[in-house]
């Protein structure tokens, strides 16, 4: 189990796990629940240069389309091929096997703590 209190968050309902210069990014359980069953993901290719706050991918459920924002500036190291093959991982394990991208980041913006994010979704 991922320790959700150790993750950083964005107001776009993404989580970020910082490990050295690598940021692993996924969407939160709250976001996955709001989307419904995820049936398709469109993730950026490894090597793509992304800038924080821009849309870099899509997460589609049966009923709607969610955008994936790059939470940090950097270069995509890897997109989760398992999620590409089985998008339901985003629902079944959003903080674990349902991760979406790994980014080699250049600089970290201000991100939300677990407590701050929890307060945001409690509103």
């Amino acid at each position, binding site marked *: 189990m991922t320790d959700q209190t150790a993750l950083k968050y964005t107001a776009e309902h993404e989580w970020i796990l910082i490990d050295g210069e690598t940021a692993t990014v996924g969407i939160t359980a709250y976001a996955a629940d709001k989307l419904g069953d995820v049936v398709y993901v469109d993730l950026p290719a490894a090597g793509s240069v992304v800038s924080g706050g821009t849309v870099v991918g899509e997460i589609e*459920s049966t009923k709607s389309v969610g955008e994936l924002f790059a939470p940090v500036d950097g270069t995509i190291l890897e997109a989760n091929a398992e999620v590409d093959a089985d998008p339901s991982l985003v629902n079944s394990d959003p903080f674990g096997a349902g991760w979406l991208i790994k980014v080699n980041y250049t600089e970290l913006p201000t991100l939300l703590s677990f407590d701050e994010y929890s307060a945001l979704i409690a509103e």
Partner: protein
Amino acid sequence: MTDQTDRYSPLHQIHVDGGASFTDFAGWQMPVSYGSDLAEHHAVRTTAGIFDISHMAEILVDGPDSAAFLDFALAGRLSAIGIGQAKYSLLLSDGGGIVDDLVVYRLADDAFFVVANAGNRFAVGAALVERAGGFDVTVADVSDEYSLIAVQGPNSREIAKATAGIDEVGVSLDELKYYWSTDATFNGQPLLVGRTGYTGEDGFEFYIQTDAAADLWAALSAAGEAFGLVPAGLASRDTLRLEAGMPLYGHELGLETFPVQAGLGRVVNLKKEGDFVGRAAVETGPADGARVLVGLTTEGRRAGRAGYAVVLDDGSVVGEITSGALSPTLGHPIAMAYVDPAVLETGTPLFIDVRGTRIAASVTNLPFYKRDSK
């Protein structure tokens, strides 16, 4: 997100306890899913699902002129249906547009039960009251007195038969035909059972007095356990009806839509005697070149959604999607769209503009999915 004007189903607490997430639908907080809308969709196609659709509006038309009144007020010939029979119909504007689509049950020689969409409750009620002038009828909005529970799927009949408390069924559930209804009781209270639905599967709809709705839901759910019945929300209801090619008011139908554009020309009975509201406009028809509703299928997994443009190879816009999703049953995207008829006649290749990516689409006959009828 919620405010004082939100309305809640009498079954709301059951849905909360069942882990439902909710969505606003025409001012009602209704269950959108109980966890997995895909699982709910597949359950309805293979076993059964139970839906709370208590937000639907019910209007009782009663009195000696009821049949003649509805022949005037609605597009179909309601006087022609038998007692117990149900009929899909349209309430048209003077201009021939669609105020709402309805299911009408004939309860007696001189009494009909009109079921309208929640969002059109007051428009339908007001139109019927206005059109009742000169007829010996009463029009009563009884929406608050009735709740509506649907059980849909191949096992629905066995579930209904096994449900404790459903009794005194007029026409046995084994003999009740599709689009017919029967009186029954549930724990002694009046129950109307229609073999109707909005999923493309066999199924039943139960009209019950609001104070008995929670007990009926519990009894149906208990009986359904052995038959794979699961609670199902509006998300799966939408993908089910889309696969079945059924229009949704506000998407495929609206005041600016003529029935013939929506493929509902057969619902308007131009042979019936006398005038009816919208007749002159419907006989004139929409302008030449008015868009018509078609089914579109695409490959891959990216679905065209409501509002997306249908375009030609050169990018010119020739239509717009009204509903679309990745079909859970078929495994590829499906959509309904209004398209310029000229491009259909020539068979010009069509594309859907999916957020900047052009995806080739094939025009398909509706429905996308049809159950094996037995």
